[in-house]
């Protein structure tokens, strides 16, 4: 394993200090229990939006703390859900009478730790569970995994909260976005978790792993490496089968780099995905290409689609000022 670090144990804890320093105009760090909040105080009557999850997916979630998006983020150790004391401390730091909405990726660890945190906090609260990975069937025993669609839920719920929506409305919007969002990923390599020191799995030179999540784990199927067009067709079809966009449907198309895949390839995938849906009369109304929900140094990409309507377009376009998404202000 080749990485930059002093000690593996402290890699994450030292790195998060760098995040706080680099973005001190936007966010601040509480080191222990570890959480990140906005520097600008949250208005008293605003619903606060809190997310979190294991580290290793940067810029998710700390990179999305700021005006128009998250009020706080709770990072766990690499690929390990954060613990309830972090969520409690974050909620106490930023919570308001208007309530707390937690945005949680659907993993046993995240769900349970957020649940315990919420149980131990007095603010009224709701949770939106993101389970957008359509590589798993909808009726999978634990539900689907939450992957790159999380960012979209955070953006839209964040905008709603910033606009003054109440807790029930934020929850309804979050659920609606989550239900209108589908993602699927493909990997060319696994990643190397610092504490493990070697890739979680290996693939042959002519193989790809289809339907991967964001933890360097195996996906749904090891396949022969296809052309970019073939790969996009597989993923797009899975998304289509789930969301069933009609002709004329407006969508947000998000191509997410998983870590080691350069922008050149991400934009190629994006271009091919545009072609796929445009050929079917679907309208690419908004788009986002780049590394937003990564899996350390995994080579791979994911494609995410959210079905849009005027309300969701408004929430997407609303001003946002975070370290890694910024527009309109």
């Amino acid at each position, binding site marked *: 394993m080749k990485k930059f670090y002093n000690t593996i144990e402290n890699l994450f804890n030292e790195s998060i200090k760098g995040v706080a320093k680099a973005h001190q105009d936007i966010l601040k760090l509480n080191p222990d*229990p570890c959480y990140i909040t906005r520097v600008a105080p949250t208005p008293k009557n605003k619903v606060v939006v809190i997310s979190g999850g*294991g580290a290793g997916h940067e810029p998710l979630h700390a990179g999305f703390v700021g005006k128009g998006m998250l009020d706080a983020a709770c990072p*766990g*150790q*690499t*690929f*390990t*859900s*954060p*613990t*309830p*004391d*972090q969520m409690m401390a974050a909620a106490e730091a930023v919570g308001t009478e208007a309530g707390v909405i937690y945005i949680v990726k659907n*993993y*046993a*660890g995240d769900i*349970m*730790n957020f*649940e*315990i945190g919420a149980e131990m906090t007095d603010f009224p609260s709701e949770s939106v569970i993101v389970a957008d990975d359509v590589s*798993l069937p909808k009726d*999978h*025993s*634990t539900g689907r*995994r939450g992957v790159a669609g999380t960012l979209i839920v955070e953006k839209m719920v964040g905008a709603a909260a910033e606009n003054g929506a109440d807790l029930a409305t934020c929850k309804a919007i979050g659920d609606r976005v989550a239900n209108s969002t589908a993602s699927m990923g493909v990997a060319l390599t696994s990643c190397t*978790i610092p*504490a*493990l020191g070697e890739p*979680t*799995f290996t693939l042959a030179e002519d193989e790809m792993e289809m339907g991967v*999540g964001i*933890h*360097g*784990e*195996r996906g*749904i199927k090891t396949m022969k490496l296809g052309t970019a067009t073939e790969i996009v067709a597989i993923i797009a079809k899975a998304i289509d089968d789930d969301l069933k966009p009609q002709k004329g449907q407006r969508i947000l198309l998000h191509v997410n780099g998983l870590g080691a895949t350069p922008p050149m390839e991400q934009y190629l995938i994006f271009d091919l995905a545009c072609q796929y849906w445009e050929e079917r009369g679907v309208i690419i109304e908004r788009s986002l290409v780049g590394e937003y929900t990564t899996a350390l140094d995994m080579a791979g990409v994911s494609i995410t689609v959210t079905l849009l309507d005027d309300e969701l377009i408004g929430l997407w376009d609303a001003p946002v000022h975070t370290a890694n998404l910024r527009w309109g202000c």
Partner: protein
Amino acid sequence: MQVTSDMLAELIKAASDTMAEHDAEVTELDKTLGDGDHVINIRRGLGFLVEQSEEISQLDWADAWKKMGMTCMSKIGGASGSLIGTFFVAMGKDAAGKTVDPVVFAQAFNAAVEAMKARGKSDAGEKTMLDTLIPVANYLTENCGKTELPALLAGLKETAIKGMESTKVMHATRGRSSFLGERSVGHIDAGARSTQLMICAIAETIEAKL
């Protein structure tokens, strides 16, 4: 001989040692079916427990379990942190105000397993640590207060190992390994193995005192 809470420092150390010894093996299991961090998580928590173990040994059982539960909850992380944290907090709650004898212990252990099931929305046969813990809970209910300590411990280890081994042929339906579907069959669950290892290490530490 009576097992008393002042032995906890030793028991925690035994659990910690066995996880150190089997680090590579169990990590490999979580790499195969999960994301590979299970041992790191568990050992992070055990590290804190070892640090606190003198203090913990001063407490009565109920308070000791509660404290251990809170430490596990806030230091392990992941699925196992919330589950094991829930487990010990529930044991402590169930035993609170009681004198812990073998029967009370068995009741507390059962309450803890129930709490874990509720937290994980899971049950036996889903290829998790519960496949070690549920048979152990049943075994304790049947034998605590009836079977002598040496035989109890021997049977306990046997039960834990059988439970752990039973996960091999299971198709995972909870936790990360469920994402693998049919591909999860044929491998032992990491959490089932780690809980079995810790139970056996604790049993052996007590046996060594007999």
